[in-house]
């Protein structure tokens, strides 16, 4: 039944016409909403947060189920070849113990040197901890849903990290859940440096689970496959010394790296205060609720 020709019924003709007018109106409203999204992304913060609160508990509950099932399979997998694995782990542990002792000595020396210089560091207590329970999976943007919200103190713009590395920063906060812009999103730019040389670089997501690394100074390509990149603390948002990614491939003047914190397998993550809240507030013209 093609609605284009409803026949002689006047009622059907009118209903078709008004439906058409309503569709045009809907299209215009959509375009206006989209334009508001562009110029003032914060204007939908409340409604987006409410939608997150409504859906995230479901995601979290289902996540528990998949994690349990995954755990059963990987747990069974660990029994395979257990003896060989055991021997290997023991060897690695011996090495690790040596490294830890060295690191302890270094950190003690570091503390003494800082005391001598009278450097003052404010300790950073985590704001909230939670789990990555889901992600955007049908869009070119890379977001993850995180199971802590403004009721736990999470605010828009705060950095999120896991024990293995940097995950991203909060971009929508509901009361119970928040949405995190992952490091691998194209719009996510992180000031970083190479752990091996300390050279400053910029990390930008590529939208496919990897990040692009570019040196700040033009010259010879400073990367080597396997290099670890850490945050530098420049810009004041991300705290320094958080691992970001490991280089997997070089290209002409930079490198492509894979983030160390895989949001898919991260069990726990913490939200921290911005490293220098004043600096962040100044540069991004930040949220009104922060004042």
């Amino acid at each position: 039944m093609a609605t284009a020709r409803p026949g002689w019924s006047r009622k059907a003709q009118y209903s078709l016409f008004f439906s058409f007018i309503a569709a045009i109106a809907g299209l215009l409203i959509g375009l206006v909403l989209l334009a508001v999204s562009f110029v003032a992304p914060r204007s939908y913060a409340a409604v987006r947060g409410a939608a997150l609160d409504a859906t995230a508990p479901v995601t979290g509950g289902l996540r528990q189920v998949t994690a349990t099932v995954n755990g059963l399979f990987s747990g069974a997998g660990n029994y395979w070849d257990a003896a060989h694995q055991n021997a290997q782990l023991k060897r690695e542990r011996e090495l690790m113990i040596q490294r830890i002792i060295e690191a302890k000595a270094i950190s003690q020396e570091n503390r003494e040197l800082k005391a001598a210089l009278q450097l003052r560091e404010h300790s950073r207590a985590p704001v909230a901890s939670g789990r990555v329970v889901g992600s955007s999976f049908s869009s070119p943007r890379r977001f993850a849903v995180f199971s802590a919200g403004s009721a736990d103190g999470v605010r828009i713009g705060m950095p999120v990290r896991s024990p293995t590395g940097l995950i991203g920063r909060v971009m929508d906060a509901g009361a119970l859940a928040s949405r995190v812009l992952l490091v691998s999103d194209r719009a996510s730019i992180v000031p970083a440096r190479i752990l091996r040389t300390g050279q400053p670089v910029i990390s930008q997501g590529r939208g496919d689970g990897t990040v692009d690394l570019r040196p700040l100074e033009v010259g010879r390509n400073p990367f080597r496959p396997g290099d670890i990149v850490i945050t530098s603390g420049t810009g004041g948002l991300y705290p320094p010394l958080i691992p970001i990614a490991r280089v997997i491939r070089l290209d002409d003047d930079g490198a492509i790296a894979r983030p160390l914190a895989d949001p898919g397998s991260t069990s726990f993550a913490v939200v921290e205060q911005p490293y220098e809240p004043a600096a962040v507030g100044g540069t991004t013209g930040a949220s009104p609720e922060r004042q």
Partner: protein
Amino acid sequence: MVRAALSQKRNIGQGPVAAAQYWPAFSVMLASLLAVLPIVSMNGWFPNFGFLVLIAWRLLRADAFPAWWGAPLGLFNDLVTGSPVGLSVAVWTMAMLALDIADQRTQWRGYWLEWAIAAVLLLGQEAAEWRVAQIMGASLPFLSIAPPLLISILAFPIAAWIVARIDRWRLGR
């Protein structure tokens, strides 16, 4: 493409289920709600389930829902999937209007033509999403939409089959 009339088993005396005329819109919302599944994807190549089911319904029946229902359904999809508010509102309504025009212009319809129309709409949707991401500061190369587009096009027959099953069920055939 309803071939229920030719099938052997006729459910004589069985009418449509309750609220049969709202099931198409409801199934689109259910498809949007697949976004709450705990999938942590690194590349975002999954199809846009809500849009797939929307165009599958509209291609199956012209009277599944009025064209303007694309706007509220799109708003729901935007809020659930976390895409910029207004993107699906505009794209879904535009797709409904485009399909109205396609209904007027096509002389005959077949499986292949419907699949081709769906492919064009999916291309438009992916391109709009790409352009909006670009405006919002995430400029990716245009070819990055190729893998998700291909996956969506291949997923369309599955969505169309599911929608046809729901249609027969809701009408009690």
